[in-house]
């Protein structure tokens, strides 16, 4: 919205009634945004300086929540765990969804049916998915109970490595279809003429994938990664239902820790402080990805075609 203003001044000097819509058009969206995004954000920042159990009025305690948080081992651990889960998510989901997306962009015979089946997780709620996998991974009556040679005693959620592996796997199962969809669309948009030229030059399918498809998907990779990062940092439902932050605090990621403090312990001050940390961290990471990838200077991949 804001970028429109200066340009409008330069191009429409002739008369205000012609050309691009004015700022009034942005008013409903701005109001909505302010009411449901900015106002709550400010309120949370204010709450982070108070002690409030939800009863009565919040009591200002200055920086107490913040200093407590700075020396809280669970808080630091939760940030690292969040980052770890995000990295694991990106590393596992990106290659898989690129391959599937490129495959699904083709015109093979069974593609439509298989894709449709594959997209089912996208239609399920995160809670349903978590409950489903919780049952499937039950050590006595689920898959591990049937395959003791693979899973041992099936105590997947009883140690940190197992619990993180389960969360990563379920995240992959849940979100890969969505990112596949992004890559499918992007792969479809690659002009056929590029492949035709490559074929005339005698390039193999693998060579075509690495020299044409992947470079052409660059912007989609960044888009999908930013979605994964922001989504991953705010993962909550799967942790709540699958591991409940455990064993101990071994999968207590920041978003879950915020919930625990605010809605289990009724310490809304600390919960709000964690929320603010999460906002800042997630924004910083997103900006970092944008900056490093050159997404902000993004240019079309089809220049010269």
């Amino acid at each position, binding site marked *: 919205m804001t970028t429109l203003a200066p340009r409008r001044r330069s191009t429409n000097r002739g008369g205000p009634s012609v050309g691009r819509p004015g700022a009034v058009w942005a008013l409903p969206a701005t109001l909505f945004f302010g009411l449901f*995004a900015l106002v*709550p954000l400010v309120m949370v920042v204010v709450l982070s300086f108070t002690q409030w159990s939800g*009863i009565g009025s919040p009591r200002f305690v200055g920086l107490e929540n913040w200093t407590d948080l700075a020396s809280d081992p669970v808080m630091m651990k939760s940030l690292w765990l969040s980052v770890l889960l995000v990295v694991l998510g990106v590393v596992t989901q990106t290659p898989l969804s690129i391959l599937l997306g490129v495959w699904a962009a083709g015109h093979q015979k069974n593609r439509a049916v298989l894709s449709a089946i594959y997209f089912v997780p996208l239609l399920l709620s995160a809670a349903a998915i978590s409950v489903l996998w919780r049952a499937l991974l039950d050590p006595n009556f689920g898959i591990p109970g049937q395959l003791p040679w693979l899973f041992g005693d099936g105590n997947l959620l009883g140690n940190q490595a197992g619990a993180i592996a389960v969360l990563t796997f379920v995240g992959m199962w849940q979100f890969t279809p969505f990112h596949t969809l992004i890559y499918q669309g992007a792969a479809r948009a690659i002009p056929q003429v590029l492949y035709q030229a490559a074929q005339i030059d005698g390039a193999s399918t693998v060579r075509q994938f690495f020299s044409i498809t992947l470079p052409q998907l660059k912007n989609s990779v960044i888009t999908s990664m930013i979605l994964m990062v922001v989504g991953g940092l705010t993962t909550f439902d799967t942790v709540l239902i699958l591991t409940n932050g*455990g*064993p*101990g605090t071994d999968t207590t990621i920041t978003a879950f820790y915020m919930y625990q403090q605010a809605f289990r312990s009724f310490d809304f001050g600390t919960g709000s402080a964690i929320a603010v940390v999460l906002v800042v961290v997630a*924004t910083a990471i997103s900006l970092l990805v*944008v900056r490093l990838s050159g997404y902000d200077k993004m240019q079309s991949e089809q220049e010269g075609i």
Partner: protein
Amino acid sequence: MNKSTSRVTRFLAGGVALAVGLTMSGCASGGSGGSDRPENEIHVAVYGDSGNTVEQQLVDTFNKTSDVKIVLDTIPGADYQQKLQTIIGTSNAPDIFFNWGGGSISDFVESDLLLPLDDFITEDPGLKDNFLPSVFNTAVIDGKSYGIPMRGTQPVMLFNNKQVLADNGITAPATWDELLEAVEKLKAAGITPIALGGADQWTTLMWFEYVYDRVAGPELFEKALAGDPKVWESAASKKALGMLKDLIDAGAFGTNYDSVKFTDGGSPTLLRTGKAGFELMGSWEYATQQDVDPTFAETNLGYTEFPAIEGGTGDAKNLVGNTNNFYSVLKATRYPDTARDFLKLMYSDEFVEAQLGIGNLPTTTNTPEFFQDAASPDYAAYQFGLVEAAPSFQLSWDQAYPPSAITPIHQAVAQFFSGQIDEAGFIQAMQALK
């Protein structure tokens, strides 16, 4: 537009977009409390579940003769405490509300939101004398009564699979040593001795509650709750932890209890299918088993008190668990007399009969007269006997403490069982409770 402003814009946009998701739920503040409460009606909030039929029935009975009408608001079960916490300080707060006594109302008492019921009791002593004292005391805070029992009692008992015990030549253990022997026998037979839904955490807590009670008596926990953290380092406390450690190391719970839940049917199924011999659980275990397999519940599900521990100072008749649920009254209510008259129904014959009919076990002194109405008379009589004879009925630790302590308690017991923290770590965690 220069670069730095666009960066700021983007930063704001990104941060704000995230904040939407994070904060929408964080700002639940209500209107101001005050005297703008509705006229000629009072609201009763209860935990929404199948038990509501009885509550509705009593409300209907009451409304037949009362000018001030009662409106029953059922609040869907999950997160009841959270919802209550959100509305209790507002003008929409219910006049009378369901709770678990102890820590579930101590914050409200501290904020001076609740009406002490002692004046009602002076007018009508039946409001106290008609209930079993061990239960009634759960809602007594700082010497004042704040709650009237309004549902059924749920003591924790040691359940067993009679068939599994018989097959392995075991009789239900009356002492700790007998329990250890049974564990060895079951382990040798390739059966998980004790089913434990450790992923739920409160299930693990029950073991601490009983072992501490048997070893040190209820006084240790009472002192800790009253604000004396030193008791956690006492010799008795360490002895209790040592006994628990021995039980875990003996393989009593198998190895994968951290991945098993009670709430999704995991651990009760282990017991029912004979893959485990015992389970320590609240009295609702019976109903849980009955739902899936009525024949098993009736013929094969055994139940006993928690074993006695030799050399311990706690009475072997002591109980832990949910003593009952309670109705508490809001100080700001417009019609305290109506509230009082409604509470009197909680020891009426109609109440007792209706509760027994849906499988709850009320804790009024006249309950035994109606056992023939119970869903399972023997089981009801057995439990009532336990509660009546119990010198002490300790409310579960996670409900005796205010809600802020629930997560640390659950984490400490789970970490102790999985070996992530040792005796010193557990003591430290409990001492840090506020």
